[in-house]
């Protein structure tokens, strides 16, 4: 199986500039086109282990990230995202090309992948069991997720939890983990062997960097997991790591609020969330020290054994 790394830089650029790079992430194939050297380089770093497919197959999504034309290129150049000929979002400064690519990839899945219940949540796995971490931005979900995957938990996804509608298992979608502001240096210290992009400043979310998904998580991207816990994390300065159970009906409502396509799926969505709320233990989780947080997850796993 061909990986992005095996293409080599020249072939990578040729595909990106030409017919498109067909990149497999979890269950999806995305045809990526872009003339931007910055994006090519970052893809090479962050997606080295990912499968690439030959031309002539079916892609789920077609995305293009291009630069500005004419004079705009010289003065505050921008990056534009096109979804197969349509441009649904405003352009961003060129330096934000990789974050834009990541957000665009997320948007493709969250707005269309209706054969799953798609939850805005991180999801990690150990011993075949998955912990789902939904959270609005700013709750520290990505930091916690990034820490856990550097302490023995497998990354299934950083942003998009794909719950299968037939059996309720989670399909992995391992992709770079996004980190903001203070979390970047925290994770650098916590996981010195992990690979990070150079931080990009002045985005709407502040300074943003991405941490590469481990080769193992990419290699095991076809290995599903059964949800066992839903944990709503909240980083709180000085807080001891504490789990507070969430009643089942409330867990249902909160999951529904955090799912992109819950309403769209109608009764199927209701049943998928109800099944999930029933089969897992749901908690609110406060913490401040990462090691303490990890210990709590390990304890949950032990209780389950």
């Amino acid at each position, binding site marked *: 199986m061909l990986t992005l790394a095996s293409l080599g830089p020249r072939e990578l650029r040729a595909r990106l500039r030409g017919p498109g790079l067909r990149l497999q992430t979890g269950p999806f194939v995305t045809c990526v086109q872009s003339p931007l050297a910055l994006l090519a380089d970052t893809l090479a770093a962050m997606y080295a282990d990912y499968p690439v497919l030959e031309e002539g197959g*079916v892609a789920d999504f077609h995305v293009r990230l291009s630069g500005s034309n004419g004079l705009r290129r010289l003065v505050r150049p921008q990056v534009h995202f096109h979804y197969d000929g349509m441009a649904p979002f*405003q352009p961003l400064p060129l330096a934000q090309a990789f974050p834009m690519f990541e957000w665009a990839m*997320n948007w493709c899945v969250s707005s269309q992948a209706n054969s799953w219940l798609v939850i805005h949540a991180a999801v990690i796995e150990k011993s075949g069991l998955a912990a789902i971490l939904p959270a609005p931005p700013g709750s520290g979900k990505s930091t916690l997720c990034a820490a856990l995957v550097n302490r023995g938990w497998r990354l299934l996804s950083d942003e998009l939890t794909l719950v299968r509608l037939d059996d309720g298992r989670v399909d992995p979608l391992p992709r770079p983990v996004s980190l903001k502001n203070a979390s970047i240096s925290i994770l650098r210290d916590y996981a010195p062997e992990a690979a990070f992009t150079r931080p990009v400043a002045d985005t709407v979310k502040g300074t943003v960097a991405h941490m590469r998904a481990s080769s193992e998580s990419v290699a095991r991207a076809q290995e599903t997991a059964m949800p066992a816990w839903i944990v709503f994390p909240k980083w709180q300065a000085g807080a001891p790591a504490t789990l507070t159970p969430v009643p089942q009906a409330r867990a249902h409502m909160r999951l529904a609020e955090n799912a992109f396509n819950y309403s769209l799926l109608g009764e199927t969505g209701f049943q998928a969330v109800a099944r999930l709320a029933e089969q897992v233990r749901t908690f609110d989780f406060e913490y401040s020290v990462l090691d303490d947080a990890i210990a709590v997850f390990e304890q949950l796993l032990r209780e389950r054994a």
Partner: protein
Amino acid sequence: MTALPVQLPLLLRALREPAAMAAFSEREWDLLLRQALASNLAATLGLLAEEAGVLAALPARVGRRLGWARTVWERHLQAVDFELRQIKRALAGTGLPLILLKGGAYATAGLPAGAGRLFSDIDILVPKEQLADVESLLMLHGWAGTHHDAYDQRYYREWMHELPPMQHMRRASVIDVHHAILPETAAARPDPARLRAAARPIPGQEGVYTLAPCDMVLHSAVHLFSEGEYHHGLRDLFDLHRLLCHFGAEPGFWAALPARARELELARPLCYALRYCTRLLGTPVPAAVLDAARAGAPHAALQALMDALFLRALQPPHPSCADAFDGAARAALYIRGNWLRMPPLMLSRHLLHKAFLSPKAEPAR
């Protein structure tokens, strides 16, 4: 005579002959999916494939992708159903028959033209004299007027054939109240009273009607060939095709169609409709009907111009198709608004995207 493109775009081939989809290669499917999505026909394509018995034979990734679009459509139907109930309730006091137009009519009557079809507004037809009553009742039940500036108000009330669209304050759904099918300012004046008189009840839906078959076809033709919006050109042409195929089986339909067109002053749109349906989609129209419809044709030079315009405009609005639309027109291809309580195709309700990626403003209606 203007020639058709040598090789019809894949989407047209699929629409003309759904069974042929089984033979398309993966490479062709990759392109076809994109054309279908750009034309808002992905859900329809999946249903056509199923009807032709070939859905299971398609590549797995294709079947899955078409399924995503189908889910959207199924949810859409539920929303339409509920919306209709609420409209019935609101207007019960008027004693008026609830005459549905366009997408709402196809969906509620379960017509083939409704399969996979999405639409953003519900359109109804009421007598002009009752417009004010209808408007106040709708407002009483939570619909609010839109387009508040003086010019827009005048545009709709004085010049157009409809009230400004009304949007429900809680559900965000939109209803368009028409009193005619063409603006006051148009050259042709199809008499709305005749349309209303011929309206047909929808079985199983007390008090709800569609236009008569000929009138539904003519309205669809008028809508496509007069209103100047071609974003959904191929989709609208396919509506016509399906309506013609379905009602063509009813005795008397073909005989009545050209005559009714003349009666309603819509011979020209009918001529265009039949011409482009037969040429692009291979609609089986009896020769006698085509002959009769030619009476409404423009003279040769104008016809050639129209051919050039429409044959281009009615292609899939996708970069892969020759003479594709400009960017602005393509960008308009999505379902407007949040009226299904879900994000529109291009927007995600959630903070993830709104916080970082700013959606472009919707183009003007």
